């Protein structure tokens, strides 16, 4: 299925917001693919970092539903190599922030078995809360 992306006030506002949050200007991206070629996590991703940059430019909010933005390990390999000096990991971070600020909780402490909880290392819980709650 081919996806349709609408260019309208909302899509432009989304692109602007990502630019503001990340401090990057995604329209600078040349779509050269150096970031993708540098990314150590690429096998685990569903879209490439350069695709992510593109979807942000087009203002396609579905980019926030991709695995990619969560799999980005913020290792900055792409940042180190981008010929345009862009920071794709900051863009991923901005997208995570937007998602997180939507304040949707996917995990509820009260539903969990307290015995189970005790088995997890503290780090795991902190990470899970950061990722899955708003």
């Amino acid at each position, binding site marked *: 299925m*081919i*996806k*349709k*992306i*609408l*260019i*309208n006030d909302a899509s*432009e506002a989304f692109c602007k917001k990502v*630019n503001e949050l990340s401090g990057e*200007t995604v*329209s*600078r*991206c*040349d*779509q050269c693919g150096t970031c993708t070629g540098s990314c150590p996590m690429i096998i685990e991703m569903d879209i490439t970092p350069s*695709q992510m940059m*593109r*979807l942000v*430019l*087009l203002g*396609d909010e579905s980019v926030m539903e991709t695995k990619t933005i969560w799999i980005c390990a913020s290792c900055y390999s792409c940042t180190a190599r981008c010929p*345009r000096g862009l920071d794709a990991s900051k863009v991923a971070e901005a997208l995570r922030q937007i998602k997180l600020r939507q304040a949707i909780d996917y995990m509820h402490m009260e539903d969990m078995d307290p015995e189970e909880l005790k088995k997890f290392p503290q780090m795991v819980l902190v990470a899970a809360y950061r990722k899955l709650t708003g």
Partner: protein
Amino acid sequence: MRIGVYICHCGGNIADVVDVKKICETVQQQDDIIFTKDLEHTCSEEGQQTIVNDIKENNLDRVVIAACSPLFHEKTFMKLLEKAGLNPYMFEMANIREQCSWCHPSKGNATRKAEDLVNMAVKKSKFDKPLQKTSMTIGKRVLVVGGGIAGIQASLDLGDSGFEVFMVEKEPSIGGKMAKLSKTFPTEDCATCIIGPKLTDVATHPNIHLYTYTEIKDIQGFLGNFTVTLRKKARHVIQEKCVSCGICAEKCPTKVPDEFNEGLSERKAIYIHSPIAVPRKYIIDEENCRQLNGQRCGICEKVCVQGAIDYLQPDEEEVLKIDTIIIATGYDTFQPELKAVYGYGKFENVITALQLERIIATGSSGPPLRPLGNRIAFIQCVGSRDEQAGHEHCSRICCMYATKLAQLVKRINPNREVYIFYTDLRAYGKGFEEYYKRAQNAGIKFIRGRTAEILEDPKTKKLFMRVEDTLSRQMIEGEFDVVVLSNGLMPAKGTDPVANLLKLVKSPDGFLQEAHPKFRPVDTLVDGVFIAGCAQGPKDIPDTVSQASAAAARAIRLMNKGQYDIEPITAFIDPDLCDGCEKCIPACPIKAIQMIDGKAFVQGALCKGCGLCCAYCPKEAIDLAYYTKNQIMGEIELALSSKKPDETRILIFADNTCAYRLADNVGTARLSYPHETRVIRLPSCSRITPSMMLYAFAKGADGLFFGECDHKASPYTGASEAIQRNIRIAHSIMEPIGVDGNRIYFAELLASLLTDYYKAITNLIKIAKKEARPLTDEIRQQLLSSSKQVLSEEKEVIR
């Protein structure tokens, strides 16, 4: 006749393979040879001195040198002859190095071939006649057609160098397209500010005569001797009286769309071309003026206190004597209506890039010519790179002007979102990539995809587009307030009348063709006529200006000395044989033949010396100097006279520009190829008539090879077509007699295609030896008699 023959050893380059002494002996046996000498290095100081002394002491009237390729040393030796007091054309060379010792390792075969080559050269020399380079005087008067930035730059350069310039512009003002632009990429100089002073410079230059609102009616003659007739269109305002007060236009009741503002505003029927018009004088537009179209008006005449209006003013003609011509007729932008899917003319919010230039240019000094809205899209390659629209070429500058315009509209209102839909983004020039990056930084969104269609919402007048982003492979849909069409640059209609008068050639894209794409980029094939700017192809202002200065320099090169030489190798007509049938007139691709008193006459100053016309004359009245019929027939005869009964022999006719050079290059690369070949060098193979082909077979040739320059690199127009026509005629006669058509091979060649040459020759030999029906003595006999009849028969065969 007193012929001196020299055979060169070229160190061992020749003598190691070719038995030089033996050749000296055999050649000596030909008539009229005073001596045959072998020299170690003919081109050395010592060798040259020997020749000069020999010429003087023995009173030689012809010299034949068998050595390296004539492409290498012909000029050296011709100068030597002149030094010794002999006409340089009383000279022939036999190429026994590149085309013999270097490519045929067998000593026996190489020596036999060398012998033939020397004999051929001796034979040819016997028909040599002294030819004089004629000197023509030339003045310093240049016609510049077109007053855009190209014409302006060329005129100023020429004027400053002391040449007299006649600049002709068909519009009421000079300036061309550049005068309409807002700013110029990539530096964003204000276009009006930088072109304005140049316009004034032209108008006030003591060496430039400016003719605006003037057309070229006729051009006759040639380099140093053009007669140009101008038609100065009536302006109906006496220029000397008009003080440009503008009261007339204020009162004129007739409104028409203003061309300078690309139809976005209106002007009156009496108007001034633009705010920066030069000359700054009013003019009445004949087509729209009420008074001039039979309606009663006469208002401007009443209000003009200067009495400058003259409704009855006629067009005037003026005849100029001109020495060289520069064509700077520019371009037209693609007519956007032709791309109906974009709805230009139908949808009010679809505009052209040139309209946007005007909107921005006028924006600073008044209300905008039209609103632009908040979401703007540019569509690239409109009319360019679109075979549907009939144009394969890239217009080269639209990527950059869109990048410029996008930034300018965004800067006016930073809240605007600007999209550029492109297919490939070309930022090739100095500072262009950096400029493109600046646009990206500014948030201009470049989307790779070509708009298929624009739809309009009839109520809101907003425009709806659907484009694939071919980078993300997603479908984009959006609504835009304004869509700007980046129309391509197309050949100007204004170029045609002048190009037709001068018989200038066009390249497949419809722009004027340069004489050579690498080495003569501003010359045309017509001597003394140069091209500059977009008339030659789409380009930006810096390239246009460079080309204009180049064209001026090339014109100066011809005129500066006050005289120029004409190559004496031209076609000439025997008036006793010419019966005035006029068949040669359309044959000559550059129209160098005229009828004078019922006889054809070749204008030496125009003739390029290709010899194409010779085969078109049914009376054999045309011949080519230095490559006369007798010379070629003589060469053919001697190339074949040594052939043994069981031998195969191929004659190679090679044009001087590519095929002969190719044969040399094969030798230089020491590639060996069959020795059964003998090369005859010509300016162009189109010199070889059908009867010569038949004569060659009659005399013993088993195959004929025609190598002509690839038409794109050839200095001659139409040569390949003419050769094929001649071969068709030969086929039509030889095939019924029993000679297979594939014994004649023709190919367009380039000097670099070494293996092609080898393969083609081997293949032709295979055909001649094995595949074709044998050529019996009887058939050859028949060919000899038919070769004499061909001329009368070929008249009607194929044109």
